[in-house]
């Protein structure tokens, strides 16, 4: 018997709407029921009930069966699938060589830049962390108002330690003392010479290679030298116990050989002499003064001492109490500076040279990330732009059962392959570029290629880059609907275009910000270089007066004035590059409060005004014609203002400076005697009675001859000392070396960021030109000119660059304005800087795009149109 069949339309409705996983059983049940009703109640009744029952199993009435067990997804990381993924990835890389090349080049350059910058950042951050007790070590610094200094009085360290149980140990270090050392026939002037307390080696972790660490610094007639110096003076011989003659006078025995000072230590020394040696002659040490600020003091705090910020505040407050109780009237503040902060967080005067700047570390860290982001954006852009090529693959994979997450995994995996390929190339680039970068930064940067930690962090960067750059293409591609894709109906959606344009804009924002930054840094450096310092800095040759020459001042003066090359000379106590002296000891008539301002002083001779070409605003300079000048003072404008005087009444006033009474005989126009990061400070000029530096103003072009003449004079008067000299303008330029370095590095990375962006743009324009192939053909047939077509293809990109300029300008302005605030004298950030950076970026972009657009425009339209 043939079972009666239910109406086909009702069954079709059922098949269309009933959930797929229960269709078979439900359809069968309904068929059986229909046959049953048909037999029992006839066709009409059966039909009615059948339709009713069909509706009862249609949505929204039907309950869906949840079963995953029936058709399990295969394990996505099946080895066969993995093999296939790799194969497809490799084929794609090989087939689209230009595109893959652009991608890998962009990514690897970006990574190489970031690795270089991060190496530098890591080096900056590693300073002084190698000391075993780094966490307990602090440097005592002080400030009087805005004047912050790294030095403290000689007697303070022990005085404080005695009264504060929190201080476990204290070490004092002198300022570096340039000394002449001699061993056998070897004789050199050394600059990195320090006097240190005997516990120097137990507080700091500087390894002693030879000698007894416990007693090394206890004998005042001994000294420690570094390995490098041992080789320099004694060659292959054992340096221990050998004699070094210092300043042609005392003989010091080498009591130990230190390892060379590590590059990432803020203390850079070659010789350490016991403090007890200096104590024989130094007045500060003899009197254990609490008033003269001349030594660097380091404290080792107890392990259980409260070293939080408020805890340290309490300690410094207590220090000030002790200081006041000692009878000091100076109004100063004390700070405990963590040892590990010294390199990056110091903005102190009278400090050891060579400090870094945390701001630059931050800036470059951000730059590193930006460059990496720019490279990632390249990848995203090219991958999505070319997605049509992969669309059919995605469609087919979906048809044969790929889930979306499988596709996401596949594309992410592909971008990871790209990023790891790039990583290896990047590491190669880093190894090649490191010597150049080392020269640029003047840092001892190294990359240890066998270091597991390094590779772990590099892999981290690669994974991050791969995931970030792969995420958008992966999500975008895996979202294709298979039917549409396989019918060939896929068109790049508007949202996708918008996103891509946004990415291009972001890239150029970064590039333009970096370009503006470079321009402003160079502008500021130029501004500083060309700023009128208040004296003429060109052609000023100086020779330090060392050794016996101090005692032979009269014969020196005679010798200098006899030679016309050196006749225009002056003797000055300190060079006006980075003056480090200062006292608060100044009294003037009508003074309200004492000891409020730090006043530097400079000892000059009668020729100062004429040699330096400074301007005397009131009164006169020192002169031999006036016998009483040895107790007279000249002040600068700033000092005059501080003392509440004016040009009319300043001359003739009596002041007490450094406990010496004298009369003001002149006021000079302000001139700079420190880095332009500081505003001009008050200054008192005294008549030079001892020495310092001989400064000669030479004639332009006769420098060589003048140097020869000076060397000759030195040989006659000071045969035991080697001749050294310098140019003041070069020293002044050196003050801004770290800024110049930053400018150079910035310039390099701005260039690279632009280059990487252009790689992306090149790929994108190639893609665009290819897509609009037919359009261009039709336009040309209808009479469009080559120029017209190029303009058409370029204008889209130009619009994006314009948007980028608008977005980047305020960001760049804000960032650079902040940087400039570090300087007391700032250049202006002019509008033309932005215009220049914008035009530069736009023209580079246009040139890049034009490669493709001109080629597209020149193509014979027959080629692009004949196939249709």
């Amino acid at each position, binding site marked *: 018997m043939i079972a009666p069949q239910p109406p086909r339309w009702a069954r079709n409705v059922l098949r269309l709407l009933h959930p797929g996983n229960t269709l078979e*059983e439900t359809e*069968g*049940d309904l068929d059986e*029921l229909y046959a049953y009703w048909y037999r029992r109640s006839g066709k009409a009744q059966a039909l009615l009930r059948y339709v009713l029952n069909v509706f009862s*199993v249609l949505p929204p*009435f*039907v*309950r*869906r*069966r949840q079963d995953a067990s029936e058709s399990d997804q295969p394990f996505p990381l099946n080895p066969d699938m993995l093999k296939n993924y790799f194969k497809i990835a490799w084929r794609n890389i090989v087939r689209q060589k230009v595109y893959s090349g652009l991608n890998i080049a962009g990514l690897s350059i970006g990574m190489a830049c970031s690795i270089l910058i991060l190496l530098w950042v890591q080096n900056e951050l590693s300073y002084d962390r190698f000391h075993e007790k780094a966490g307990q070590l602090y440097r005592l610094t002080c400030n009087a108002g805005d004047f912050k200094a790294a030095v403290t009085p000689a007697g303070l360290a022990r005085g404080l330690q005695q009264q504060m149980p929190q201080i476990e140990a204290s070490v004092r270090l002198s300022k570096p003392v340039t000394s002449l050392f001699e061993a056998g026939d070897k004789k050199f002037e050394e600059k990195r010479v320090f006097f240190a307390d005997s516990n120097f080696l137990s507080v700091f972790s500087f390894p002693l290679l030879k000698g007894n660490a416990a007693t090394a610094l206890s004998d005042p007639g001994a000294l420690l030298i570094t390995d490098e110096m041992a080789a320099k003076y004694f060659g292959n011989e054992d340096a221990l116990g050998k004699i070094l003659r210092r300043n042609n006078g005392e003989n010091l025995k080498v009591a130990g050989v230190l390892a060379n000072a590590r590059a990432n230590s803020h203390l850079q020394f070659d010789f350490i002499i016991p403090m007890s040696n200096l104590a024989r002659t130094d007045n500060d040490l003899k009197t254990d003064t609490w008033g003269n600020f001349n030594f660097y003091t380091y404290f080792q705090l107890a392990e259980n001492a409260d070293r939080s910020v408020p805890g340290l505040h309490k300690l410094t407050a207590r220090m000030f109490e002790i200081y006041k109780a000692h009878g000091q009237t100076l109004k100063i503040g004390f700070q405990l500076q963590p040892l590990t902060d010294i390199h990056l967080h110091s903005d102190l005067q009278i400090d050891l040279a060579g400090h870094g700047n945390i701001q630059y570390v931050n800036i470059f860290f951000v730059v590193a990330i930006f460059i990496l982001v720019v490279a990632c954006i390249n990848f995203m852009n090219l991958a999505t732009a070319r997605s049509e090529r992969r669309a059919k693959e995605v469609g087919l994979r979906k048809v044969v059962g790929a889930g979306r997450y499988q596709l996401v995994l596949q594309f992410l995996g592909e971008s990871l392959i790209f990023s790891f390929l790039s990583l290896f190339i990047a590491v190669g680039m880093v190894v090649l570029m490191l010597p150049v970068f080392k020269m640029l930064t003047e840092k001892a940067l190294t990359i240890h290629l066998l270091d597991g930690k390094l590779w772990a962090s590099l892999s981290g960067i690669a994974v991050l880059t791969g995931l970030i750059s792969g995420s958008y293409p992966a999500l975008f591609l895996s979202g294709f609907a298979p039917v549409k894709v396989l019918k060939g109906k896929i068109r790049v959606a508007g949202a996708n275009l918008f996103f891509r344009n946004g990415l291009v804009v972001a890239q150029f924002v970064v590039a333009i910000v970096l370009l503006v930054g470079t321009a402003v840094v160079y502008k500021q450096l130029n501004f500083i270089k060309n700023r009128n310092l208040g004296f003429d800095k060109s052609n000023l040759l100086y020779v330090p007066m060392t050794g016996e020459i101090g005692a032979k001042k009269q014969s020196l003066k005679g010798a200098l004035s006899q030679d016309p090359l050196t006749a225009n000379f002056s003797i000055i106590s300190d060079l006006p590059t980075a003056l480090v002296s200062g006292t608060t000891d100044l009294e003037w008539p009508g003074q309200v409060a004492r000891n409020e301002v730090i006043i530097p002083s400079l000892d000059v001779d009668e020729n100062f005004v004429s040699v330096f070409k400074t301007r005397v605003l009131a009164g006169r300079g020192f002169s031999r014609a006036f016998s009483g000048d040895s107790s007279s003072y000249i002040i600068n404008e700033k000092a005059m203002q501080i003392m509440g005087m004016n040009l009319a009444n300043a001359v003739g006033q009596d002041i007490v400076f450094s406990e010496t009474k004298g009369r003001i005989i002149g006021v000079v126009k302000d001139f700079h005697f420190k880095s332009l990061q500081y505003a001009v400070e008050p200054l008192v000029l005294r008549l030079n009675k001892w020495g310092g530096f001989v400064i000669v103003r030479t004639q332009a072009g006769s420098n060589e001859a003048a140097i020869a003449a000076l060397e000759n004079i030195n040989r006659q008067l000071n045969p035991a000392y080697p001749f050294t000299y310098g140019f003041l303008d070069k020293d002044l330029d050196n003050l801004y070396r770290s800024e110049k370095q930053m400018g150079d590095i910035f310039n390099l990375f701005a260039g690279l960021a632009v280059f990487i962006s252009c790689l992306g743009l090149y790929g994108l324009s190639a893609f665009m030109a290819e897509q609009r192939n037919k359009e261009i053909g039709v336009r040309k047939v209808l009479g469009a000119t080559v120029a017209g077509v190029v303009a058409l293809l370029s204008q889209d990109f130009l619009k994006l660059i314009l948007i980028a300029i608008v977005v980047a300008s305020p960001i760049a302005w804000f960032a650079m304005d902040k940087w400039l605030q570090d300087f007391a004298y700032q250049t202006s950030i002019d509008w033309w800087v932005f215009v220049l950076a914008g035009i530069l970026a736009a023209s580079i972009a246009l040139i890049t795009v034009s490669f493709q657009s001109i080629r597209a425009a020149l193509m014979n339209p027959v080629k692009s149109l004949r196939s249709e």
Partner: protein
Amino acid sequence: MRRTYLGEFEELVLLMIAILDGQAYGMTVSQEIEQHTGRIVTLGAIHNTLIRLEEKGFVKSELGGATMERGGRRKRLFRITALGSGAARDIQQLRSKLWEMLPDQTFKFSSI
């Protein structure tokens, strides 16, 4: 342990599955309920209840037993689980306990 709620119709379907003993699928359950209770139920109601019972763990199912009448389509055959029979027995015990607690006049009233 939280007792799973069993509705009146669910209980009916569950009992039918137990009675049909391996022959329970959508069509037979619906036919039996119609025959024994006189209620006219839609397949949709049965279908949903079966799925719900399976989700609650009272019954389990497997596909099988294709016949000519159904055009060769497989049936989903249901079988009661231990949990299901336990739940049915619990309800039965609760009922009889409650019945015993009824005072006598209730019968009188109900018999009027």
